[in-house]
């Protein structure tokens, strides 16, 4: 078993961090110990392996994404989170809890008051869009037409985040189920339009990988999704289901195109 000192010197030499006088000490150790020589050879190979791993290129859209979060003409640190978040009105957690159904993930991702003011990480995925995605940038669209229900669901892939824009008019309380997990997607937040206020009768839940959004109104909303896992398996479609009074009135799927780099 090599002594700690020998290991330290071997590693320091490999890193080019040997101090004056230590070279001679290491040389003596290596000369007298086959184990030390073997260790040095192994460590050298490991370090060479580590250093041979190529750099990863960030997604091409990343610079633009970051710049887009910084308002033009403003001092960068003055763009308060509140300013970014205020355009979104999450469905109140209280309503969701009242249903006894809500998984806290969704609310945690959305509610700014639950985070330290400077916790920008928590807002990733919820502050990407201040309005409906441009229809020209939509990657897939699904028309929804059933007795008492009319509208569409569109998916925009903007790199690491996918935005599902739901615009469905219904005559009665409607539940829209989005099969995220089956599509290899995770939930990153939900948002209403800029001028909307939450209304009674709206709530959402995440159960068994599906997002359920229940609404008695017909206001459009955006759902923010992100790919999960290591990306080895890429799903092809995102299932959408609409139910009323516990009865399925529509079922369809959005085809997922384009892969994040």
């Amino acid at each position, binding site marked *: 078993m090599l002594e700690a000192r020998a*290991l*330290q010197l071997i*590693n*320091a030499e490999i*890193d080019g*961090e040997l101090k004056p006088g230590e070279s001679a000490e290491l040389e003596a150790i290596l000369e007298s110990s086959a184990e030390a020589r073997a260790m040095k*050879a*192994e*460590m050298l*190979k*490991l*370090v060479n*392996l*580590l*250093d*041979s*791993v*190529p*750099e*990863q*290129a*960030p*997604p091409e859209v*990343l*610079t633009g*994404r*970051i*710049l887009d*979060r*910084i308002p*033009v*003409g*403003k*001092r*960068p*640190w003055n*763009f308060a989170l509140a300013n970014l978040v205020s355009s979104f009105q999450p469905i109140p957690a209280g309503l969701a809890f009242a249903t006894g159904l809500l998984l806290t*993930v969704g609310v945690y991702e959305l509610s700014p008051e639950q985070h330290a003011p*400077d916790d*920008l*990480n928590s807002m*990733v*995925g919820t502050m990407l869009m201040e309005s409906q995605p441009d229809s020209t940038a939509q990657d897939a669209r699904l028309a929804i037409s059933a007795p008492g229900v009319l509208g569409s669901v569109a998916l925009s892939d903007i*790199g*690491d985040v996918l935005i599902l824009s739901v615009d469905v008019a219904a005559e009665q309380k409607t539940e829209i189920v989005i099969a995220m997990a089956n599509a290899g997607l*995770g939930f990153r937040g939900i948002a209403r339009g800029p001028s909307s206020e939450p209304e009674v009768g709206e709530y959402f839940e995440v159960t068994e990988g599906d997002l359920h959004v229940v609404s008695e109104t017909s206001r459009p909303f955006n759902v923010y999704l*992100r*790919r*999960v*896992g*290591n*990306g*080895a398996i890429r799903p092809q479609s995102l299932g959408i289901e609409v139910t009323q009074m516990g009865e399925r009135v529509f079922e369809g799927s959005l085809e997922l195109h384009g892969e*994040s*780099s």
Partner: protein
Amino acid sequence: MVNSWDGALVDRCRRGDRQAIEKLIREYEKPVYNAAYRILGNPEDAADATQSVFLKAFENLDRYDANYKFFSWIYRIAVNESINQFKRNRKLEPLEDDSVADTSGPDSTVESGDLAHWIQDGLMALTHDYRTVVVLRHFSDLSYREIGDVLDIPEKTVKSRLYSARQSMKERLLANGIHL
């Protein structure tokens, strides 16, 4: 590693100069992304973390002390953001294994392309303390002293973590059939 830093650029960023902000992002985006990628293990989370790093950096730019190296400051934010995100992922996706999937087994033939896979697997098997020093040393090319500055730990601790981490990685690679 980014070696050059123009202090005037930070001042311009502080004044809200768009071009300076873009220049700053372009200069540090790749190293920050790569550090985040190696700590988190996947490109999507690395992109999220990188975005957070820059937004947080710009929001707190007035707190940056120009007597210190800018890359140390932004790397510190990057490491903290990445580790926080890693912990959050573990918490939110308890059934999902963030490490690289073991698909071939110890007796398989290792192609050159798989080496990066197994290196990342070895990294993800380390504790985040160990992983961070390996990432900063080998993927950010920082010296012991610079790593100590970024992590705010003594150089002695950097050494001890790095040596232990390498030993663990070596054993992990050997266990996966990668012979050194």
